[in-house]
């Protein structure tokens, strides 16, 4: 199990909470909340070790595309980067 944290300051805060997905095979759970301060914080717990560069690339691309401020928690059970991006967009759609 590995923990990865990605942060970026600034951005437009999300206004609502959103919860999508599940900790199930090839899937992930995303909890998205309005942030305490104007920054995006994504904390990942993943069951698959050794993919930190892929996680960083995926999450940084997401934050580049959507410059939001939010507290995001990801609980992952071996999701692919495509699945991760889809879940994040799904959460964002519900949270803004």
């Amino acid at each position, binding site marked *: 199990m590995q923990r990865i944290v990605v942060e970026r300051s600034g951005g437009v805060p999300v206004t609502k909470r959103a*919860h999508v997905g*599940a*900790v199930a095979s090839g899937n992930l*759970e995303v909890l998205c909340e309005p942030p305490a301060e104007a920054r995006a914080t994504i904390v990942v*717990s993943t*069951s698959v070790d050794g993919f930190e560069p892929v996680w960083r690339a995926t999450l940084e691309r997401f934050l580049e595309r959507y410059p939001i401020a939010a507290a995001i*928690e990801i609980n*992952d059970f071996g999701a692919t980067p495509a699945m991760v991006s889809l879940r994040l967009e799904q959460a964002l759609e519900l949270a803004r």
Partner: protein
Amino acid sequence: MTPTALRRSYVESTSRERIAALADPGSFREILDPFARCSSPYLAEQGVVAQRDDGVVVGRALLGGRDVAAVAVDGRFLGGSIGEIGGAKIARVLERARDGAFLLLDTGGIRLQEANLGLLAIAEICDAIVALRERAPVVAVVAGRVGCYGGMSVAAALCSQIIMSPVGRFGLNGPEVVEQEAGIEELDARDRPAIWQATGGVRRVGQGHADVLVEDDLDELARALRDAFRASPNRERLSLERLRNRFAQEAPR
């Protein structure tokens, strides 16, 4: 020609969508949602990522105007297994239920990573069901992909009524356990037709182990659930004598 309305599938819905679709519209209030972050403290130290609701959704809802407890086990997370936290959520909401409860069970039973704590939790759940059913209906729905096995099959059997769909499976030991314990001659756990033939919804309702069979359709399930609450006949209680009779009838000689 009017277009045929698409069925809303129970199997394809999430736990929260299932409760929302079955309860009176807009009435469900979740207790300890994922943002309460009541997840299992035992999984991380075993290298397993925890889900923030511990795979269990509980709350209060109205069902045909009755104030009931709503429970749904999420079969996607660790096979819908019951650990200390998820089990406690179910037991507490059943203990506080007013006019009955419905349980959407998609569970393999006890969570092996939490062993005895899961066992204790299921004992508490069984206790709460028996106490509640004396004064109000407690209805189980077994219609998900995982089915209902292990300790939670005992909990389901204690309910006033059990509603199943052909997708649902219901038995004490899951197929893999039977194969491991009794040998592949007894049951090949990869033989899906054999598994459904022995433990599927059609068979279980035919045998009288479950009460109502409905299609994999949320609207149909919602109607069946309301009917079960209206009729509320406590199914014939599990008793040793009844089990002996049934065994005598069904066991191969």
